[in-house]
Structures are given as structure tokens and as C-alpha cells.
């Protein structure tokens, strides 16, 4: 909870993306339909139209201020509203001033330009209401409490962690480093832009099994295998994210951008229950870099991974399916 030395609005801004258009390299514009963004997920996917040659994207945004922003006795003057796009991976910050819709409305709207060369994966879009308070200009009066995710690659507007799953023959892959792991059925690489699972096609039948959409025991085995892979992935990405933490000059860990941050926000409530995620991150960081406690934490990390992977469900269905098969073979 931040403390502000001046009066603010207690409620957040509601921000919506209302339109998305791509500018292509030949100078034409392609307005994307509503499947490019989701108000529910607060996410935009610029890859939906499948263009490989877009230069920039124009996002139409609309911000609704909470009641009281225009109160005649408000503590601020010079009210203005800003949409801000940031990208932690490319250090880009772009802001645009919104204009009030009809006179007296609580809605402010405008457009924000995103340059493709400036982003690598996911950018965050938020909004601020700014005013002059007690003679100090540029004070934030209120802001969005949850920013939008603008994914420059994805073809589906979802917020959650996305994995890349690739099939490769470990012994013959052009990624020569995979050859050292020829006897592993799958591997997780957390050093890539998004965590990637490599499935080893050298293991006979593994691809057929994973791709199968049949019913019965086979599909339950597949689900169990997927749950096992997912457990490995969640464990690996947690360690990957916690291992690369940046530390502020004061010594506290900084919440990372991109998928590392998403993984931590998702898993920390299970790893250190009952505290705010920021505090949970400090505790985990202290135990990893301090003298003790890291070993004890492993069970919690494993638990968080197993829950995410829905392993109990996969095991449960697998056992029931086996029981049914046994029963049928007995009769």
C-alpha cells in the first residue's frame, strides 16, 4: 500500500482498447476485427491477422475516470489523462494524451502508436489521471490497477503464461546442443524468449501419443504425460525467474517484466501463502540468497508446480480409467 502525501481519487481508472489497426510496409492500413483484443483478458494480440510485414499498430483506447475527478471542490486542477505503453525488455516508454469525449463526460479517449521494431513480445498499457496538486504539477491522481497486455506476436488475446512446445529429434536437431540430451524424452529451456519445451521425437511413439485425440486409456496416459511435462515446466520456469532477479540499490528484489513476472505472480501465492506477492518475492529471494531455508522451500515450489499442472486431476482420471479397463477384462 503506497502512501501519498496529497489527496487522490480512491478508485482506479477503467481502461479499454476499442480498436486496433496495423500499418503495413506498403503504407496501407489493416483495421483488425474485435478478435484481436479481449476486454475480459485485458489483452491485445497483434498477430491475429497473420501479417509479417507490419510496421506499427494504432491502438484506440478509452479511459473512464472514477466519480469525483471533476468535483468542484477537487484538490487538483489542470486535469489530464494519459495512456502509457511500457516494455521492460526493450526499455520503451510511449505516452499519449487522451482527450475528453463530450464536454463533461467521464470518458477520455485517444490513440496510441506502437512501433513494431521497438517491441519483442509483450508490452503493458496503462492509464493515469494527472493534475496539479498544492502547486505541484504532474501529480498522479489515480491510475489503472491492472494494465493491459499488448502481445506483438501472439494470435490469441490471452494474458497467461504461454509456452512454446517444439518437437525435435534430439540426435539430429540443427540445435546441436540438444544432442547431449538424447536420452531425455523432453527438456525445458528457460533461457529462450518464452519458456520452450522440446519433445524428443527419437522416443518411439511419443509424438503419436501426444497428438492422439482418441479416448480411453490412451488419452488418459497422454493427459498424465502432459501433466508431468507441465510440472517440470512450472518448476523450471519458477527457478528460472527467481534466479535472474534484479536487485534495487536498496537491496530488495524487483518484480521482473515479461513471463518471469507472470510466473512469479502466479506461483508465489502457493509458495509463500498468506502474504502479498511483493512480500512473498522478498522472502523467497532472501531464502535463496541467504544462509538457510532454500531446501525447505523446494516442497512448496513443487506443490505450486503440481497444482498448476493439474496433476491430481490427471492421476485421478488415469486411475479410474485403469479400474474400468480392469473391470471390463474381468467380466
Amino acid at each position, binding site marked *: 500500500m*503506497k502512501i*501519498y*502525501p*496529497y489527496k487522490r481519487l480512491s478508485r482506479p481508472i477503467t481502461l479499454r482498447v476499442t480498436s486496433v489497426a496495423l500499418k503495413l510496409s506498403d503504407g496501407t492500413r489493416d483495421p483488425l476485427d474485435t478478435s484481436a483484443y479481449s476486454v475480459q483478458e485485458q489483452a491485445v494480440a497483434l498477430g491475429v491477422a497473420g501479417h509479417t510485414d507490419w*510496421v*506499427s499498430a494504432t491502438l484506440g483506447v478509452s479511459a473512464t475516470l472514477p466519480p469525483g475527478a471533476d468535483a468542484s471542490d477537487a484538490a487538483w486542477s489542470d486535469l*489530464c489523462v*494519459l495512456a*502509457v505503453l*511500457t516494455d*521492460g*525488455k*526493450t*526499455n*520503451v*516508454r*510511449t*505516452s499519449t*494524451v487522451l482527450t475528453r469525449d463530450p464536454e463533461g463526460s467521464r470518458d477520455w479517449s485517444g490513440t496510441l*502508436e506502437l*512501433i*513494431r*521494431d*521497438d*517491441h*519483442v513480445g509483450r508490452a503493458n498499457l496503462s492509464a*493515469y489521471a*494527472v493534475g496539479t496538486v498544492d502547486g*505541484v*504539477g*504532474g*501529480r*498522479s491522481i489515480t491510475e489503472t490497477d491492472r494494465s493491459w497486455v499488448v502481445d506483438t506476436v501472439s494470435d490469441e488475446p490471452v494474458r497467461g503464461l504461454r509456452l512454446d512446445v517444439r518437437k525435435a529429434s534430439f540426435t539430429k536437431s*540443427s*540445435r*546441436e*546442443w540438444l544432442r*547431449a540430451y538424447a536420452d531425455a524424452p523432453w527438456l525445458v*529451456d528457460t*533461457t*529462450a*524468449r518464452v519458456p520452450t519445451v522440446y519433445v524428443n521425437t527419437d522416443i518411439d511413439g511419443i509424438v503419436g501419443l501426444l497428438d492422439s485425440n482418441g479416448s480411453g486409456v490412451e488419452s488418459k496416459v497422454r493427459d498424465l504425460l502432459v501433466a508431468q511435462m507441465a510440472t517440470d515446466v512450472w518448476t523450471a520456469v519458477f527457478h528460472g525467474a527467481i534466479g*535472474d532477479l*534484479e536487485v*534495487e*540499490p*536498496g537491496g530488495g528484489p*524487483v518484480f521482473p517484466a515479461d513471463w518471469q513476472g507472470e510466473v512469479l505472480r502466479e506461483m508465489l501465492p502457493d509458495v509463500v501463502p498468506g502474504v502479498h506477492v511483493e512480500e512473498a518475492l522478498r522472502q523467497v529471494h532472501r531464502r535463496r540468497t541467504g544462509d538457510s531455508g532454500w531446501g525447505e522451500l523446494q516442497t512448496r515450489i513443487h506443490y505450486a508446480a503440481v497444482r498448476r499442472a493439474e496433476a491430481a486431476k490427471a492421476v485421478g482420471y488415469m486411475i479410474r480409467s485403469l479400474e474400468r479397463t480392469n473391470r471390463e477384462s474381468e467380466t
Partner: protein
Amino acid sequence: MITQPHHVPERLALLSGSAADPFLTEGLLMGEQVHSGIDLAKVVEPLPEDDARWSVEPIRSLVDDVMFAFEKERTGADAWLAPRLHATLRLTRQEAADKRLWNHLALAVAPDYVVWRHFSERTGRVAAERFQGPSDRQCFSRLWWAAEIFRNGLDYGPVEVACGNQDLIHTVLRLGLLDHRPTAQAVVRLLKDGTITTGREVNGLSVAINAAGATLIYDVLAPDEPRDPARLRDWIEEAQTAPPVSRHVLPEGPDEDPVPEDSVAALTDYFTELFETAPVRGRKSED
């Protein structure tokens, strides 16, 4: 200290973190033994052949020159190399965010430079993050990003000033506050006019800017202009025919509009005021 690998590739390539890992040997980190280069060449992912930007020779010769010129004073190498590396290796931010490129540069092209620049007498080794690490730590990407963030349009002058202060590029670069271009230029101006000089002062200032930034939206106090992506694209295209960068005068960056002067001036005044009241470790109070 090691020399360059026996086999230095002719072209830059991508080296994934997992593929790079086996080459970060104890011998390399202690600066005693370098790989031959042959095995490393097998695990890279190539970049397009027809792009002159991926030619290694211009970068390798820059690195050789900087080691020769700054033999006596290694930290001074940053201010010289950062703008020249940026102007030689013309990248978009999207490309520069790919750690695989920097892994390759450090491990395959110039591991000797990484050791030369970052070997610590105290620990007897180089931190592995200088080869493969976060963008503000890795030997080459930190210089590229410092140049990108502190250049004022085509003018690399502010980069030289910024890179002359190790604390600025070591601790402040990682705080998102410099992503706002007028903020970055205002900080450089304070360094240039001598308002702040020591590392402690830089840290004190950055803490003060950061704290104030929690409630202040600098974009309103000091607006920036949107950038034109075509200017950067043109500059990158010119890499196909550009001569090597001068060793004596600063090169020029992409012909983008400089940060609005009014915004830099407003923030410089504001930061000066902030700094006068900021607690700085070791600074005596006036009485």
C-alpha cells in the same frame, strides 16, 4: 590472460543460453583458457547471409583497438566503445533484446575482451553474467543499451558523458526511469554541468528521482515527441555501405529528432532542486 579464440567466426550468429552454457568453463571465467571456437561454431543459429550488419570484422577490430588504447585504464573503454559499437552494429530494439546475439558476441567473437574489461583482481575471475546475463550486465549489451538510451537523436555526445560514470550505467540503467527520454537527457546534463559528479551522488539522485516518480508522471512535466520508425530503418539500411566508424571523432546515430529542449530544460531544473534536498551518503550537511 586469454587471447581471442583460434577460430573467430566471420559472421555474427545466435547462441542460445542453453547452448552457451557448456562454454562458460572455469578456465574461461578465470581468464586462463579459451575454447578453440570450432565446437562453439557448431551450436549456433545463423543469421541471414545477405545482411552486412552481421559481419564480425568491424566489431572485432573495434575491440582490438579499444584494448590497445585503454590498456592502462580499462573502465574508460566504456565511453569510447559504447557509441562506436552502437553505430557499427545497427540494431532495432527488438533485435537488441535478443540475448542470443550478445551471447555469441561475447563467447565466440571477443571472449578476450570480456576478460580484459571485467576481470576482477579481487575475486580472480570474471562474473559469468558478463558473458551471458541480464541486458544491463552483459559486457556488450550493456554498452549498446547505454548508447541507445542516452543518445539524443543522432548525437552520441550524451552517451560519452553517461558512460563516464560507472554508477550511472551500472545501477541506474536498470531502473525504468531512464526509458523516458527527457529524463535520461536531464540526468546527463546534471553530470555534464558538474551538479553531480561522484557515484554516490548519482545513486542519491536516482533514488530521489525514483521516489518522486512514484507520484509524479514525468511525461506530463516533460513531454516527448513520438519517434519516426522510418528514420531508424533508413540508418540500418545504410549499414550495407557505411565505412568503418571513426576512431577519433564520434560517429552519428540514426537521424531521429532530438528530445524537445524545453522538456530537458524543465526536468534539469526540477532534478537540480530534488538533488539539493536528496540525502546522499557521505555528503556533509551545510551547517
